């Protein structure tokens, strides 16, 4: 079990900058998710930790050991691929035994270890089958078993659930999280699915265009996004953003006016900023019929989701989405007021798209 430290990792492919000065510490026994859209560099980062890619600049440490120049096989990592990469010409047993055979482990010990890990993943009755005879979920277990059988210090997972159907994904998600904690293994998990990251990870690193935007617990990145992008990328539906102008103690949002949230008063004063972007999550506001104190708009559309419904509201032509209880009924074009929970409001700088408090701290 190790702690992983990435210091100033930069990776170029020709002229393309895939990773831009990544600094990250992954604690021992931690479940770290690397979350980002496709092409953000999150997989490249994972493969750099594995040793498949060598960083153009920067160092990688496992505990105090510098592994930057150490070939993949000597890093003792287990990797689960998106397509699982099970060798089609080998049985499940041979697949799982393969890493041990390469290490010249004695035959009876291989047998024992394979059975052990197979039992843990509930695939002990599949050992004689070939990968193509297995369902997606079973193949995935085999891939995890193969990664775990050599008792790696680090478990690396590259979108391992994306080839499974939705229901199965939810099931495996819970199981994987439990397994990681039971084994107490350091895990790095690459995903583009924000729900997956929120549900499973101890901490999430949000990556975009080769840069880490924010690292934090699921709660931190969800409720305190450092960047507008983070707020937009996490949550479904994403955070609402509306442009606002500072007018003394108030924020003007199109034709409406709301007070500046108390936790931003000092910051706005210090920064002397005029134009901001106001962000809030769809469930951090409520809809009041008629004209009141808050953002004034009219109902554009509403989509019942069972327990609740998503109401799309037009604020002078700009759309926001707000959750409402299922029993409330709306009509198209109805005038409403959106009241936002003041303590959940995030204000971003309009140019840099950074939350104001970070601008202030810098």
């Amino acid at each position, binding site marked *: 079990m190790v702690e992983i430290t990435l210091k100033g990792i930069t990776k170029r492919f020709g002229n393309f900058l895939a990773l831009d000065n990544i600094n990250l510490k992954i604690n021992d026994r931690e479940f770290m998710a690397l979350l980002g859209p496709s092409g953000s560099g999150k997989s490249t980062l994972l493969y750099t930790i594995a040793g*498949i890619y060598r960083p153009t600049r920067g160092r990688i440490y496992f505990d105090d050991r510098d592994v930057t120049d150490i070939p993949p*096989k000597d890093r003792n990592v287990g990797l689960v691929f998106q397509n699982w*990469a099970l060798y*089609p010409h080998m049985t499940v047993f041979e697949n799982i035994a*393969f*890493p041990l055979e*390469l*290490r010249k482990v004695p035959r009876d010990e291989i047998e024992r270890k394979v059975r052990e890990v197979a039992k843990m993943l509930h695939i002990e009755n599949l050992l004689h089958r070939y990968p193509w005879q297995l369902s997606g979920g079973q193949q995935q277990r085999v891939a995890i078993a*193969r990664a775990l059988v050599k008792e790696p210090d680090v478990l690396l997972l590259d979108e391992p659930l994306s080839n499974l159907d939705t229901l199965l994904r939810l099931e495996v998600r819970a199981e994987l999280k439990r397994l990681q904690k039971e084994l107490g293994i350091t895990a790095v998990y690459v995903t583009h699915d924000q729900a997956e990251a929120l549900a499973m990870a101890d901490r999430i690193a949000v990556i975009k265009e080769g840069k880490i935007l924010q690292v934090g617990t699921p709660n931190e990145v969800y409720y305190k996004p450092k960047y507008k992008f983070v707020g937009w990328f996490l949550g479904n539906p994403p955070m609402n953003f509306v442009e606002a102008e500072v007018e003394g103690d108030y924020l003007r949002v199109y034709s409406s006016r709301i007070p500046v949230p108390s936790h931003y008063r000092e910051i706005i004063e210090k920064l002397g900023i005029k134009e901001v972007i106001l962000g809030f999550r769809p469930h951090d506001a409520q809809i009041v019929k008629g004209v009141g104190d808050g953002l004034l708009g009219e109902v554009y559309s509403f989509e019942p989701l069972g327990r609740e419904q998503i109401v799309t509201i037009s604020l002078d032509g700009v759309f926001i989405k707000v959750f409402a209880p299922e029993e409330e009924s709306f009509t198209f074009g109805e005038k409403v007021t959106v009241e936002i929970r003041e303590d959940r409001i995030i204000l971003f700088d309009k140019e840099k798209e950074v939350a104001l408090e970070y601008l202030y701290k810098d």
Partner: protein
Amino acid sequence: MKDIEIRSERFQWIVILALLLASLPLILGYTLLILSSFSKEMVTNLDLTSFHFTLENWLYLLQGKLAITGGIRVDIWRIVFNTLLVALGVALVVTLVSTMAGYSLSRIDFKGRKHMMILLLILHAFPGVALIVGVYLLYLLTVPQGQGLDVLRLYSFFYVILARAALEIPMSVWLMKGFFDTVPWEFEWSGIIDGASRIEVWWKIMLPLVKPGILAVALFAFLAGWQDIIYVRTFLIDQTLATFIEANIEAEYSHMPLIAAAGTLYLLPTIVFFIVAQEILLQSYSGGIKG
């Protein structure tokens, strides 16, 4: 069906008929040759009255009796064996070289890789036959001196196999590289992370994954060795079916239908491969041209 169903039946039959007509000389040529091998006289004149069924040609051929009368004998089985030896040798050399080189060109980045691939493409575009004067000179300079005939014969087998295989190398390496290219990188990476060396990855993971490709390359190389005449007649001391036919077509003693039988015998493996491996043949032929 690559086109949708609204094209007319009639149009289809017109196309098929036109194709059949265009293929007529081809069909006719091969059929008449095979038919003649079962006849007392050649039937290439399209006169079916001269067709008298007999297995005599085949019997005589397989006994090595070249002429109906007289005592001209050849060891036909030895000749078939020689042909097979060259073909198998070429297939073996080509398969080995191309699976090794194809893997490294597909999977390993190194300085000069691009130049090597360009060189291969140029060699592929430029058949090595033009260099046969130099290849023969090298043969003369390397042939073991002062040895018995058996050594010379053995050396000529060795040399003809390598020289003929060399002709197939650029194309086969390129083809093999294409097959390796289709294997997802994750298989390779998985092996590397599990502790395999590149050689182990190649042998234990990649080769089983590209089996159809290996089969295709081996098949093409075999047929190339099997069909060859120029290299065989230039380098090989022993006779193969090709040089056997070449030598006997105009010989006064030779019985024409018997030569037709020899030709049909020679054609047999090609036909067998056609039937067994038509999918591989049609698909992989185009595989070599993709980048």
